[in-house]
């Protein structure tokens, strides 16, 4: 009985803000409720441009982190245990140096060239660092679940090169892990605010904040949309792997 009551209280605390956001996003002044806030937001030219920008950055971040990490995690699992230890340590570092601190170091260190640090493309570097722990963990789980040693020996003895082994044997074997890493990265980048705000780039999260200063219902609509995106990514990941992912220093 007490247990149910407590669970209900927890449920209330966690569901009420979502419910309130949903209701608020439908509010059209007075006693009227409709979808006008959504229509207004979707018609906003900045919505499309910032959403597209964040989406492009997310795709680029996914590509870069997979490109960097797949070969390294593969090699660490197959031949070089020392690298694994190093990667474990590295995947904790983004927590020690949170985004708000890292962005200071990055801007102090890299002052040019302008075609790089002056464009939103500069953000990819920081986003890849942010996504690194998650991508590493997902790929590591994936590589350990396939029999890397046997597969490699078989492929190599059948005349495959290292690149062929990686692309035709390893990558197909860890596709679910790659997908879950990609989705989590997508969710992180779409909601990332710290880097973009400090570096003054107009990404999706910065746009949500801007809308929030001027129109409350629009911000509620966007927040709900953002929550839906995280939800989708999380469901897909939970479907892919049973192991729950811990959150460390995401986009808070």
């Amino acid at each position, binding site marked *: 009985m007490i*247990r149910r009551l*407590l*669970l209900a209280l*927890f449920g209330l*605390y966690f569901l*009420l*803000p*979502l*419910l*309130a*956001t949903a209701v*608020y*996003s439908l509010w059209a002044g007075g006693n009227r409720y409709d979808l006008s806030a959504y229509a207004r937001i979707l018609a906003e030219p900045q919505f499309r441009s910032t959403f597209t920008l964040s989406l492009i950055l997310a795709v680029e971040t996914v590509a870069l982190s997979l*490109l*960097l990490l797949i*070969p*390294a995690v*593969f*090699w*660490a699992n197959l*031949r070089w245990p020392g690298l694994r230890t190093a990667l474990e340590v*590295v995947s*904790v*570092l983004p*927590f*020690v*140096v949170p985004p*708000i*601190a*890292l962005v*200071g*170091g*990055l801007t*102090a260190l890299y002052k040019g060239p302008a075609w790089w640090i002056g464009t939103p493309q500069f953000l990819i570097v*920081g986003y*890849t660092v942010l996504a*690194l722990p998650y991508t590493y963990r997902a790929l590591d789980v994936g590589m350990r679940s396939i029999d890397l040693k046997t597969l490699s020996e078989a492929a190599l003895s059948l005349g495959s090169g*290292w690149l062929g082994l990686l692309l035709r044997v390893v990558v197909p074997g860890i596709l679910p892990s790659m997908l879950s890493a990609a989705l989590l990265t997508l969710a992180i980048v779409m*909601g990332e*605010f710290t880097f973009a*705000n*400090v570096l003054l780039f107009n990404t999706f999260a910065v746009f949500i*904040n801007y809308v*929030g200063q001027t129109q*409350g219902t629009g911000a*509620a609509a966007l*927040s709900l949309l*953002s*929550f839906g995106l*995280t939800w989708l990514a*999380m*469901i897909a990941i*939970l479907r892919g792997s049973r192991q*729950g992912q*811990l*959150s*460390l*220093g995401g*986009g*808070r």
Partner: protein
Amino acid sequence: MDGLNRLLFSGPLLLFVGAFLLLPSLQIGASALSDGHGGLTLRYIEALGQPQYRTAFQNSVLLSGTTALLGGLLGTLLAFLASGRRGWLAEAVTAFSGVAANFAGVPLAFAFIATLGTTGLLTQFLKQALGLDLYGSGFSLFSYWGLVVVYLYFQIPLMFLVMTPAVAGLRREWREAAEGLGATPFQYWTRVVLPLILPPALAGTILLFGNAFSAYATPYALTSGALPLIPLQIGSALQGNVAADPQQGAALALGMVALMLVSLGLYFALERRNSRWRQR
């Protein structure tokens, strides 16, 4: 051949980590100690003692400490509540925690503004239905306790995710054994459960502390700097809203990194002890 492969496979990643994680981290220290003309100075470190930074530091530590303690307690409680016989409940709570622990920042801030802001749904409801005027009685979502309420939204789920394995590791046989030996429920909880739960709970609470301390987007969207916190001050020093002062920002960031190092070191020391215990 192996050496070449090693370079080809891991070189790019190591280079990237060095250039964009390690060097920038060291640069924080270098910037904090540099006078901008190639010399060393302690000016920026000493400036951390100024009242404005001291207040921000106190606020940040208090806020992180409060939400870590409350989140730690409530998250552990939730882990116990959800670890029942019915599997679907635990699964649903786990899935939701995964989302909520990652659902932070600007959208979270606005979700709470819609709920507990001055015109928020809950605020209005309490006022009209129960005659309870939250803002009249001193509460504000944009103040210290308001932030505590919002932070708990990602702190409790994170603690839940940390504690679930430990709670699931409590075997039913232990309870039966304790009861068989004549232990009262109170004795079972204090002598068996508590010693097993306390170390991971402590480690989780430390994790929560660091998690809250480095939060930037949530307080930024909520308070716009009305409540001085370390991440917000780093942000405004870097962004240069008034006058850009990257070195002061670096000094503040250095303080933050030092604190994160200490808390994470504690976390890993505890974790190692815990895992050694679990292996036995």
